[in-house]
């Protein structure tokens, strides 16, 4: 029988979130990088606002170097990948060596991208490994609870990121559906009120994305006297 401690369930959730964050931010970055190559120099300012990260960067070059690869910049993609690794490395027994290996390989690929002249090529390898991570997780992890916890992190993070980036309504709604389906499979405690509220605001003509971010971030803050699902 699979048993999972609070700490490890928390780590699974965050492993899912950070893998997703790395994946989606690389994809988003790639689009910006492409346009920054010869077109708009200042595009990163906008990106920082969207991502809700402090714009500490002095130039386009500085942004590319530090936002992607600086481990000491807590908002960098690399920092997020290291957070994913820090969670993964203590979950070997839950996710298995094979799945864990892809996070390890993503870290190696990131280190290579850092020293490369064409970072996009190696960032693609990071993305490849994250995709492989999800594939292996799906295939190799027996425990549904473990899989669901990982994916719940992914779903939550995706909505959070998409809302921040003000993605199209249809995209957000699709992600919201996937989350609603997933959340009850984990047995994790969450606020049914907040979930209902999220579903409600997703149907509004103009989705208030700030509110989505707020609600999704507090979905698991369950107060004792509130209606809770799970056990």
């Amino acid at each position, binding site marked *: 029988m699979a048993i999972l*401690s*609070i700490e490890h369930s928390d780590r699974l959730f965050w492993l899912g979130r950070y893998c997703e964050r790395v994946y989606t931010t690389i994809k988003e970055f790639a689009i910006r990088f492409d346009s920054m190559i010869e077109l708009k120099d200042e595009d990163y300012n906008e990106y920082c606002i969207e991502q809700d990260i402090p714009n500490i960067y002095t130039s386009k070059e500085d942004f590319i170097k530090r936002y992607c690869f600086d481990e000491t910049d807590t908002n960098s993609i690399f920092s997020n990948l290291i957070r994913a690794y820090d969670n993964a490395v203590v979950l070997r*027994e839950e996710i298995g060596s094979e799945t864990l290996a892809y996070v390890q390989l993503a870290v190696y690929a990131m280190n290579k991208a850092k020293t490369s002249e064409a970072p996009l090529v190696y960032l693609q390898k990071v993305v490849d490994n994250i995709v492989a991570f999800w594939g292996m997780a799906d295939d190799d992890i027996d425990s549904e609870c473990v899989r669901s916890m990982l994916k719940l992190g992914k779903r939550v993070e995706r909505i959070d990121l998409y809302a921040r980036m003000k993605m199209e309504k249809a995209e957000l709604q699709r992600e919201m559906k996937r989350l609603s389906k997933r959340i009850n499979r984990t047995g994790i*405690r969450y606020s049914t009120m907040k979930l209902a509220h999220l579903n409600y605001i997703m149907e509004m003509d103009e989705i208030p994305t700030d509110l989505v971010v707020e609600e999704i971030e507090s979905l698991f803050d369950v107060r004792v006297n509130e209606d809770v699902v799970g056990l």
Partner: protein
Amino acid sequence: MKEEELYRYSDTVNELLARYGVKFGIYKNGIFKEQLFPFDMIPRKIGKDEFNYLEKGLKQRVMALNEFIKDIYGDKKIIRDKVVPEEFVYMGSGYLAQCEGVTPPNGIYTHISGIDLVQAKDGEWYILEDNLRIPSGASYPMIARDICRRSSPATFKNNSICDNRNYAKLLRKTMDYVNAGGHTVILSPGRYNAAYFEHSYLAEQTGAHLVTGNEIVVENDNLYFIDYSGRKERVGAVYRRISDEYLDPMNFNPESVIGIPHIYDIYRKGNVALINAPGNGVADDKGIYYFVPKMIKYYLDEEPILNNAPTYLPFYEKDMEYVLEHFDDLVLKDVAEAGGYGVVFGNSMTKDEKEKFIGMLKAEPRRFIAQEVIDFLDIDICDEGKVVPRKADLRAFVLMADEPMVWRSGLTRFSRNPDSFIVNSSQGGGFKDTWVLEE
């Protein structure tokens, strides 16, 4: 196929070792770093008959050590009969008064022993050290073998090598045999421990749950794992990879924040098994090492099959005389140190150092042992593309369930420095797989 040809696969193998994060952690200037454990492709090979002989000797040795620990924390017959002087027991750092009168499940103390051996140039094997606390290292040849098999299947088809995939099974059997009812967990101090890779790998391979101290609690005189949904699951066996002093702040070091309060109290009542038993350190002290052959005779009434390296105890006057006379030919070891520290060669000291050392020796004769320097049989390693001879030892793993079991493999550690005898990974050593041949 010639062994050297194995080096062709070095890159593939190293890539796979990196892929699976086969690392150990070290602290350098207070910063935690993970390092890949340097692996050398040429295995150490041990013939079938030779290993059978080692196996017999290792089983005998571990049986005697287990009896010794049981006796020390119980009847103390070996002290009464003056086979082991009591000061070596009570003044050793491994003796824990808290263990007096406590009998572990099935009377097993030494569930997992790592016995270090060396082979001399004349082929003779010597026991160098018994590690009975929390010996580590089995995971490295386990995964290395797995990776080598993948990289060069032909090698394993064409050589008849004893399968070493069974370590996880042996370990599981060992843990299940003493389980007091409930789940089995591996207790790790956390990922910033030098052997964290091993903890997590063994958990995966044995199907035990890897936990840290804050995930299990004592309640109603039982140990429980608390599920994320709040459900409590009883734990019956803890393979703990944290040392005795940090295990339980209520019974050992009160400063410990990684332990589980009261776990020792319920162990005392037989409600949980601790693997290995606390207090084992009393038997792997370097001073006690001298007495192991005597223990074998005393408890088992048998002649020791495997020899100690010739050892002298300056504690005995006759031995002190010998040590002073042959000082330059001997290696001196501080009994309180481990991990390759506190080891000095008589002939490497300056005149002043020697005088100072002899002063210490005379003031605290119990603190040191002296050994003849064994002429190690060098084994080949590949260093920057060149095959060169280096010093190496063998850590054999003996597990104890209803009977002692010797893993037909082992961790061969070598020194990368041509002039050094020190093979410890914490001091830059590397490792090899150990093949036990089927014929």
